[in-house]
């Protein structure tokens, strides 16, 4: 009797669904006050936060988006994974632990403390745009998995998947989300290792039992089918590297990992574990993309553009045991939901702290918002966010990786340097940051969803990141220093204050020169 992959994946869906529901219920019982509901009472240890963080960070781009795009673009695109892994190391060294010392729950609170309310609301708008781009890709992935498992139309699948994920968020809060993400991390680590080994074995690789390196023996064949050939210009690849390196380091997901950690040291441990786990997962992801391309090329199967997101499922369906193929389908689902849950709680929290409470103060002056009221407001805000994005995704893009990369690019150009300067350059001013964010945001004019209005033969961040950095440095020098600079010493852990600390000219001048060189490189030959 032939076993249906959809049926097995459906069983995984039910079994793990019960586990995540229990985690959410336990999270609900633990979340008595707003801080416990929104940032798990800042009690999450390094190891759990690291694996949970990996899960919230990776997203559906890992299984489906990456395989789809490598099948279309060949090996050089796999190089984009490396900056995505490195961005965590950069975040760990330059931003993460200090962000924890600020005591902020979200990136928006941090920006408000350092650069004032006007900049915070601008950053909020940028973040919501990013969340929209990112969430659409993830919701589409959820829909694809539910569609594949239950054989229902994609639109209905998106609605069902979106509502389930929203319910888990609202019930469990940050505790439920973190515990679920930890379990989801174990699922993904095991799924990708087992699947990579299984696919390699099926296509006859001798070292299939070592999926991290075993696929190296395919290289001569892959070279002969043109897998390693560059399909775009060096500028295009460099711009993509910048997207991966910068966007992730300024993303709301990363700040949530900081916010829910016990302390700065715990943030570093969490991010170190995260880099390690992601290294393992990415090595297997490369094996899968390698093997999937090999199988598709050697069997002569033609993957249409609209089918590319399903490429991994097709390969696993053909080459692995149904139990494993179903596990991959389910793992893709958990990859997407873990990112969605993080973004939903981010939107909910900023909805309470930066929309609901200020509006209430405006309408009923001097009325305090109780902890219980904030908790209820957060639950309502998360529900609205989840439902809204579910319905926005009903007309999804062709490839889910495309809006995800646009989102990263937007964050790179607008928020990377302001986040970095917030901790490392006291002289930066709110006017400098404001001008830099507005300059960086112009990158959307180069993205597909605006036309693009400015056509560049590479990702626009190669122009707008250095431009925004230059504007930031110049305007900051021209405007008076902010009083909030006195916070910087405390965020670095100093108990005393010294004006000289983090005030030197070396950093801004070096970045300014680097930006000019980058701009020249980008613009020459256009």
């Amino acid at each position, binding site marked *: 009797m032939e076993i249906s992959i959809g049926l097995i994946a459906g069983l995984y869906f039910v079994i793990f669904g019960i586990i995540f529901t229990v985690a959410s219920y336990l999270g609900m019982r633990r979340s008595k006050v707003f801080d416990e509901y929104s940032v798990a009472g800042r009690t999450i240890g390094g190891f759990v936060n690291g694996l949970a963080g990996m899960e919230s960070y990776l997203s559906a781009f890992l299984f489906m988006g990456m395989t789809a795009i490598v099948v279309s673009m060949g090996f050089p695109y796999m190089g984009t994974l*490396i900056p995505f892994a490195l961005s965590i190391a*950069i975040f*760990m060294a330059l931003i993460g632990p200090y962000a924890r010392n600020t005591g902020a729950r979200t990136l928006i609170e941090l920006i408000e403390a350092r650069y004032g309310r006007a900049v915070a609301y601008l950053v909020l708008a940028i973040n919501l745009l990013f969340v929209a781009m990112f969430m659409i890709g993830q919701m589409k992935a959820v829909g694809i998995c539910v569609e594949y498992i239950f054989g229902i139309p994609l639109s209905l699948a998106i609605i069902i998947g979106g509502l389930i994920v929203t319910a888990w968020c609202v019930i469990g809060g940050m505790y439920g989300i973190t515990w679920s993400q930890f379990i989801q991390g174990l699922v993904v680590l095991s799924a990708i290792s087992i699947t990579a080994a299984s696919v390699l074995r099926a296509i006859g690789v001798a070292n299939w039992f070592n999926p991290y390196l075993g696929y190296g023996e395919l290289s001569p064949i892959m070279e002969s089918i043109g897998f390693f050939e560059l399909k775009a210009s060096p500028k295009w690849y460099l711009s993509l590297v910048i997207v991966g390196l910068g966007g992730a380091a300024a993303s709301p997901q990363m700040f949530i990992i900081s916010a829910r950690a016990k302390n700065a*040291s715990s943030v570093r441990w969490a991010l170190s574990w995260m880099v390690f786990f992601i290294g393992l997962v990415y090595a297997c992801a490369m094996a899968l993309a390698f093997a999937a391309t090999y199988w598709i090329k050697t069997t002569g199967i033609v993957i249409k553009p609209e089918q590319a997101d399903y490429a991994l499922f097709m390969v696993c369906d053909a080459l692995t045991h149904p139990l494993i193929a179903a596990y991959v389908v389910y793992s893709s689902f958990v990859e997407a939901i873990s990112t969605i849950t993080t973004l939903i709680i981010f939107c909910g929290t900023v909805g309470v702290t930066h929309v609901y409470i200020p509006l209430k103060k405006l309408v009923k002056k001097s009325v305090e918002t109780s902890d219980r009221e904030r908790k209820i407001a957060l639950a309502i805000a998360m529900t609205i966010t989840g439902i809204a994005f579910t319905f926005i995704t009903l007309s999804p893009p062709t490839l889910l990786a495309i809006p995800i990369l646009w989102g990263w690019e937007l964050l790179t150009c607008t928020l990377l340097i302001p986040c970095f300067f917030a901790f490392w350059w006291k002289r930066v001013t709110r006017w400098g940051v404001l001008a830099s964010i507005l300059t960086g945001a112009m990158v959307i004019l180069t993205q597909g969803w605006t036309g693009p209005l400015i056509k560049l033969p590479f990702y626009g961040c190669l122009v707008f990141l250095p431009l925004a950095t230059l504007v930031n440095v110049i305007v900051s020098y021209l405007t008076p220093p902010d009083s909030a600079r006195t916070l910087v010493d405390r965020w670095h852990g100093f108990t005393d204050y010294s004006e000289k600390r983090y005030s030197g000219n070396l950093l801004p001048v070096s970045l300014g020169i680097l930006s000019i060189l980058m701009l020249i490189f980008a613009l020459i030959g256009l």
Partner: protein
Amino acid sequence: MNSRRKTLVEGLVTTVFCLWCIFWMIQPAIYYPDIMRQTWLGFPAHYAFWLIGMVIAVPASCFIYTIWADKRERPSKEGE
């Protein structure tokens, strides 16, 4: 060591750490495409470098950096 020197050391170590990590990302691009025809562990050599960077070099560097940072950690009112 006075406070300003401590800050400089901290900045220097952090910068070196970041540059070291970035090195693992860009070095295949530095050698590309001349190294393309060479193989190591069966892979095109630049690709093997990437793998080693991702799975071993960068994670190990992160743990070492974390241990170093823990030793020099200053108490923080919010963080502790």
